[in-house]
């Protein structure tokens, strides 16, 4: 009897989760597989070599430099976001003053600003004759590195957009750490730095991994920010593959670049899913 009821519940459960799974399969899994299959087909008019699309793309100097540029910009942006967000998350978790309450609202502002608007706002702020250079001009500085339409502009805008995500995830992890553990570490004589490296950091390892991997994937796969605030060349892969698809009408190269991006980000993606899974298990 019990077995029968369980299987009925199982069938109902599967039936209820089937519709969104089908949508997911149609919009994520199937396109990814189609893309891989498509790239393995030889280009029209060329003798069949199994990885012809890949050798062709990787043999193009501009595309190679775009790939390198994308990886470097992504790593720099992830590092800057992380180094700004961790202290901020610690501060919000362990200090209670009026300025923390203010900070707690302030850092979340970019969360509610669409990326297109964020990029445009950054342009008006940092561009050659924008607000920053106007202010600097009035204090007598008119020679400084360009802040817009180059890698610096991309990194600054990615940082602006990503800070709330990082602080929220890190902060949720820090919130879960028991104050008693920190107090006892201090009672046995651990200094602040030692407390951080021996207690806080290991206990917050999973949220830290989630933060780093999510930042990497979202920045690596971004289009809007490099498209609007980046320079001409080298450019990030998101812009390049979109241009190949919609402007040059060269779908094979575009899809091949997409699959290369999947491969480069795959390890990070696996770590991300594994980390969220670990946190889920710990939460129950």
């Amino acid at each position, binding site marked *: 009897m019990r077995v029968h009821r369980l299987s009925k519940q199982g069938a109902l459960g599967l039936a209820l989760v089937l519709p969104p799974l089908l949508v997911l399969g149609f919009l994520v899994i199937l396109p990814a597989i189609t893309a891989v299959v498509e790239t393995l087909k030889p280009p029209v008019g060329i003798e069949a070599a199994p990885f012809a699309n890949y050798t062709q793309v990787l043999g193009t100097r501009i595309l190679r430099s775009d790939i390198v540029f994308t990886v470097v910009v992504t790593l720099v942006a992830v590092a800057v976001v992380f180094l700004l967000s961790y202290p901020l998350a610690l501060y919000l978790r362990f200090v209670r003053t009026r300025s923390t309450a203010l900070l707690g609202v302030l850092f979340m502002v970019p969360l509610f600003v669409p990326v297109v608007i964020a990029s445009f706002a950054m342009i008006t702020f940092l561009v050659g004759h924008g607000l920053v250079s106007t202010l600097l001009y009035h204090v007598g500085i008119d020679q400084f590195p360009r802040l817009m339409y180059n890698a610096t502009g991309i990194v600054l805008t990615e940082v602006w957009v990503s800070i709330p995500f990082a602080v929220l995830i890190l902060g949720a992890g820090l919130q879960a750490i028991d104050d008693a553990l920190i107090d006892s570490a201090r009672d046995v004589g651990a200094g602040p730095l030692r407390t951080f490296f021996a207690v806080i950091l290991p206990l917050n390892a999973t949220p830290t991994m989630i933060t780093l991997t999510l930042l990497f994937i979202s920045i690596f796969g971004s289009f809007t920010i490099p498209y609007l605030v980046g320079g001409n060349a080298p450019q990030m892969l998101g812009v390049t593959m979109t241009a190949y698809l919609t402007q040059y009408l060269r779908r094979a190269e575009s899809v091949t670049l997409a699959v290369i991006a999947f491969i480069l*980000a795959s390890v990070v993606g696996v770590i991300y899913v594994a980390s969220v899974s670990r946190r889920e298990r710990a939460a129950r």
Partner: protein
Amino acid sequence: MTRAPWFWAVGALRRVVGIGALLALAAFILGPLATLLVWAFAGTWLFPNLVPDFSLKWWVYVLSNADVGKSIRMSFLSAPTATLISAVICIPAAYAFARLEFPGRRVLLLSFLSANAFPKIGLYVSIATLFYRLDLMDTFAGVVLIQIVNTLLFMIWIPTGTFRGINVNLEEAARDAGAGPLRTFFQITLPIALPGLIVAALFAFIAAFDEAQGSLIVGTPNHITMPVMMYALVLGYPQPVGAVFSVLLSLPSVILLLLAQRYLRAGYLAAGYSL
């Protein structure tokens, strides 16, 4: 007496997170938005003037532009459609993930993370190659589907967490009192879960409404939403035009957030964004 926080004795750290850092962060976060807002009410703003010549002429220009009107209509048709479809298919599934035992439950729940585990633009390019074959490029359905990709995770994970958080005893008590499963769901579970479901729908709507890069690929040239319109305005028009349109584009999110403010506890936010 409250103890000083554990890192407070580190002089360097204290200085870093001091008033100076707060001001720098405020300038970095609010500076660009403030500049944008001033531009929206500027007629012209010449370097090196600190304030522009104020004017509303660009508002008239933007609001009387036919393409802008079309994009507003497209956004307000597609984003609610995507949110509604997503809610209808996802909320029952979320209930199943939270309450029912079935084979593969954990793996299937985690599989929804795959939408986040791919670099987005690569995914959109792949979707486009599929849509070419299915004749979904430059269609309303194609744009809605692209928006749904961005809503699934919010609509599955936040409601699953909400349903899990509801005490099973409440539902069992209703069942013991003679209520059927559907009646129990609609009269007991749903009202308690409502704040969580509203937050999920809010995130889903904002994600769908703000989606730009996928809609640019799939919707061009005849199904242009407001964020896609924004690309053209930023790249091809005087600064105030983009600024005016930015204000218009932000209005729905800001209004919704103000309306839903009391549901937006930091916990829900973290749950929604740590996905």
